[in-house]
């Protein structure tokens, strides 16, 4: 072994150790490691008709997702092969031409995915989960594509700019810049989401009480109106620093949910903030950005590297394939965070019955399969399954609710 090889191995080892240490730190959770989820039978919580409907809905959703993935990979593979021909449509320099090729790749992908999107919308409309019109949906997506173009151009400007300066080592400065952009986006995103104040005084008072318990005082709780386009219930914690807030969809606040169920949701979202999940998500993004950018740099070497616009179509394919491969891992991390937020909710509300009821109500409202198959679970589930969440509520009840002296 030469000294250079040994040096590289050592460097790799140090970097891998640093990566693992950072991942370990980000993985820390308030959910007790010793917590054992009891096995519960879904038939005790849902009717046979509900289980049939959700299983049938989810099965088709998975098929549509798979169809979409195949379309995505095939289209981008073809584009990686032939996309450089669009160079003749550019009078710009290398970076401008790279931007054009990037945008055209996304444009072709958008065109190819229109049938998939329409199929998915049709399936949701058929089950009354969406009320958005087809034309409105397609044109809405078309405008959203404009936003993607802007981000893509910015990304390519960074990557190609560094590649022209540093050659194949562009990924070293580019990855932290992308992390910075992710952070900026996390900060700005809440300001781009149109919301209004929560007008229920009782829920507002509860929010203030929970904020004190979870040590996230003065977090605004607001409502987003989505009822015109969907009937799905949802809530999210978003923002960093002064933009931090909890957003509840009006389908949830004004939906068929009891006050106690809304308390569970509120405590769950505040739990995300309490446990710094947005910061941790950015941390995870950083951990994936470095190796991801490095792999892209390696993959496009034969096309002349990222300094050449001809490499852009291939880089899009590599990016999408890497994202697909990373999806199961990202889902594991996401489920881990969501489980912790559920646990925080239980610690705050001390109401496992309300949590169970909330998730029971979610099944007919969202048609989520309470106990999906392994593939769906690994590839698509960003949250613990409904049954796992009910089981966690039951586990909390068994652990703490029997004796106040044992309460955390």
């Amino acid at each position, binding site marked *: 072994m030469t000294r250079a090889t040994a040096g590289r191995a050592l460097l790799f080892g140090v970097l891998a150790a640093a990566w693992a240490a950072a991942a370990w730190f980000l993985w820390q959770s308030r959910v007790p490691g010793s917590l054992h989820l009891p096995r519960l039978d879904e038939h005790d919580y849902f009717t046979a008709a509900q289980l049939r409907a959700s299983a049938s809905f989810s099965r088709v959703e998975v098929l549509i997702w798979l169809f979409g993935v195949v379309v995505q990979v095939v289209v981008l593979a073809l584009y990686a092969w032939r996309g450089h021909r669009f160079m003749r449509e550019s009078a710009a320099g290398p970076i*401008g031409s790279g931007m054009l090729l990037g945008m055209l790749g996304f444009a072709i992908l958008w065109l190819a995915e229109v049938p998939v999107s329409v199929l998915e919308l049709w399936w949701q409309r058929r089950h009354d989960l969406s009320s958005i019109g087809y034309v409105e949906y397609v044109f809405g997506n078309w405008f959203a594509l404009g936003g993607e173009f802007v981000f893509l151009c910015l990304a390519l400007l960074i990557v190609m700019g560094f590649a022209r300066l540093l050659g194949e080592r562009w990924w070293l400065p580019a990855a932290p810049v992308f992390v910075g952009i992710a952070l900026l986006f996390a900060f700005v995103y809440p300001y781009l989401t149109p919301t209004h104040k929560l007008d229920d005084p009782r829920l507002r008072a509860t929010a203030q009480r929970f904020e004190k318990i979870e040590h996230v005082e003065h977090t605004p709780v607001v409502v987003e109106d989505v009822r015109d386009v969907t009937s799905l219930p949802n809530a999210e914690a978003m923002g960093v620093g002064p933009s931090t807030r909890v957003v509840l969809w009006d389908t949830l606040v004004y939906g068929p949910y009891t006050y106690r169920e809304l308390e569970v949701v509120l405590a769950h979202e505040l739990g995300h903030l309490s446990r710094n999940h947005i910061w941790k998500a950015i941390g995870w993004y950083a951990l994936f950005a470095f190796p991801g950018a490095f792999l892209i740099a390696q993959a496009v070497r034969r096309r002349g590297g990222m300094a050449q616009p001809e490499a852009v179509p291939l880089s899009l394919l590599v990016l999408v394939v890497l994202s697909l491969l990373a999806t199961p891992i990202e889902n594991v991390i996401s489920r881990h965070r969501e489980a912790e937020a559920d646990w925080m909710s239980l610690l705050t509300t001390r109401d496992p019955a309300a949590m169970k009821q909330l998730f029971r109500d979610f099944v007919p409202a969202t048609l989520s399969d309470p106990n999906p198959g392994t593939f769906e679970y690994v590839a698509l589930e960003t949250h613990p399954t409904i049954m796992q969440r009910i089981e966690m509520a039951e586990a909390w009840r068994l652990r703490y609710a029997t004796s106040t002296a044992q309460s955390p």
Partner: protein
Amino acid sequence: MHEHAEHPVRLVVEDDLRRNRLTVFFRILLAIPHFIWITLWTIVIVFAAIINWLATLVTGTPPGGLHRFICAYIRYSVHLTAYVHLVANPYPGFVGEEGEYVIDVRLPEPAPQVRWKTVLRLPLALPALLIGATLGGVGGTFFAPNGGRGGTGVRFPSFGGSGALSGVAAFLGWFASLVRGRMPKGLRDAAAYGIGYDAQVMAYLLLVTDRYPSADPTAMLGDVERPPQHPVYLVGEAEELRRSRLTVFFRLLLAIPHLIWLTLWSIAAEVLVIVTWFATLITGRPPAPLHRFLSRYVRYSLHVYAFLSLAANPFPGFLGEPGRYPLDLSLPGPERQNRWVTAFRIVLVIPAYLINYALLFALAAAAFLTWFVALVRGEAPWGLRNLSAYALRYSAQLNAYLFLLTDAYPHASPLEGAAPEPATFDELL
């Protein structure tokens, strides 16, 4: 080289630009008898047009008598519009005499017409009416909420619509003619172009010909003398009409990064133009580095809007470099400029801004229609491309004037300026 057949409806311009100040001042009032007369005539024409349509549908050719009657109406409409818009000076006759007015239109003899085009004439004419609404105002009745004249009553397409190029040129020409006793050639040509296009649209709509109107300003004013070359002019590959269908479909979205960059660049340009203004006022010429920067900005702006409006095909660069884009701009160097013109530049630019504003509507309409055509055929229509080039050229001349690249006022003529003739051997001697 593209071959472009001559349009059967041809505008004839024999005007010498001289204007009588008295008749200019009272022009609208003097035209009142004509307004009454054309309103009556228009009512008759509506019925004549329906009969003509049915007859052409049955026989395939418009009947001679009706054809002559409609031609006289179109000619009269051109004479009257030219008079009202100050494109011509003499008071016009009332019967649309052929070859007797300084702004006239040559119309074809009755000829067989394709029947399906006759059946669908009105829907087929809609794109031309849209362009007409922005140029002469012929489509104002169809595309403006109150008809072509702000709801004054006359709603047939024989008068300029508010906001149309001819209307703005006439408005500015009124002041200029009163002061100088002459109509500025640029304004006259611009208004004449709009009127000529209106005549072609009317001839198409009223079944005088089944040849579609051509928006090409160069062909429309082919017999008119070209103005002297402006120091800011278009260069590049005018004949390149190929358009990539994919980039046409996504043109608006693809332009977004450029529009963002152009906005950022505009902020810097607006700051630096103030510095340039002071420097030019003091030294008499713009500082070379600032002139270079602002030249790049003006050129880049042209590239972006040429791409956005489909007047050119490729994705432009971000630096406004000369010689890289098929629709490019030749700009003068940092030459000496008149200090008075520099001092009052922001005021002097207002008339040109109004013309530019009218042309932007034409550019938007041309881009909108080109989008559909290019998507289907994979190439831009020659006429619309040249209309867009005219609007872009004027806009570039305006920007060059505003950003102190030249003190030459933008020239409103749709005709590209003629390069100075090379000196003859005798002159050299």
